[in-house]
């Protein structure tokens, strides 16, 4: 562990002002571990924002993590026992004023730049009328559209052997309690400063 990441880990252990929830988990990319992480996240964050916001957070993260499971594995790098090397994911989620900040890093294959370009829906036409048209309906390609639809301030960089992806799920604060000064845009300033 480098000094920088140690420092980042220390920051993560400190309770944020207002005791807002946060989650940090490290796990191998696999649909079952992703499900467990999302269920843990849901438990931790329930009640910290409107249910709709927590649901959007869960869906956005599910899409990001599923993509790592599906596309991140380096098939050329085989582990002992002949299994491919599933990426090791670091997930960090923190509730801030104005949003829920997410940072996801993994040591899988690089994210293609095209994923971060503006995504349109794979299908937007009128309902298909005949059997042939129905067969053309997409069964995938929704993931990055959903991620872009549900998040803000999406940013990505690759450093060394890791992908770093950060984004915010916006929260509209219903009421700010007296004395708590509104800190507009605090969430926007979040970035996973893992490189020090």
């Amino acid at each position, binding site marked *: 562990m480098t000094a920088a990441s140690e420092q980042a880990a220390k920051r993560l252990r400190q309770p944020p002002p207002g005791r807002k929830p946060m989650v940090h988990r490290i796990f191998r990319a696999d649909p079952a571990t992703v499900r467990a992480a999302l269920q843990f996240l849901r438990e931790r964050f329930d009640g910290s924002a409107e249910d709709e916001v927590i649901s959007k957070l869960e*869906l956005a993260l599910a899409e990001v993590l599923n993509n790592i499971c599906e596309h991140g594995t380096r098939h050329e790098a085989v582990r002992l026992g002949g299994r491919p090397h599933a990426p090791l994911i670091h997930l960090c989620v923190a509730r801030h004023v104005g949003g829920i900040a997410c940072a996801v890093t993994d040591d899988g294959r690089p994210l293609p730049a095209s994923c971060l370009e503006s995504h349109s829906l794979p299908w937007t036409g009128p309902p298909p009328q005949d059997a042939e048209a129905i067969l053309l309906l997409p*069964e995938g390609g*929704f993931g990055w559209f*959903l991620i872009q639809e549900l998040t803000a301030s999406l940013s990505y960089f690759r450093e060394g052997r890791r992908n770093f992806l950060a984004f915010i799920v916006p929260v509209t604060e219903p009421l700010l309690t007296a004395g708590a000064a509104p800190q507009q845009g605090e969430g926007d300033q979040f970035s996973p400063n893992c490189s020090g």
Partner: protein
Amino acid sequence: MQLTLLPQPDGLTIRVDEKRLDAAIATAFKDSVRSMIAGGGPQVTLDLSGVDFLDSSGLGAVIAIYKAMPAGRTLTLAGLTPNVERVFQLTRMDTVLTIRKADPRQQDPQG
């Protein structure tokens, strides 16, 4: 994979007894539903009232089931919870698939 097969006069209802239709079970879900549909009548209803989380893998599985419906059969989705409904709306798949509103009193007179 927990699914309950409920025979109906005009077909069958498949109740999904899984809280999450996600990447962990999407393929098994698709295969199980397809094999259940093979033996039923013309009207197939997929009851999703017990599902509170659906991701794009689960959505893809539902679309695959729709695409694989045998000729002369119809697929209706019922009991969508708000989280599940959101995914269909965001992806516009609510305009393609037949979705029956959650209110059980609103039975479609056309069948």
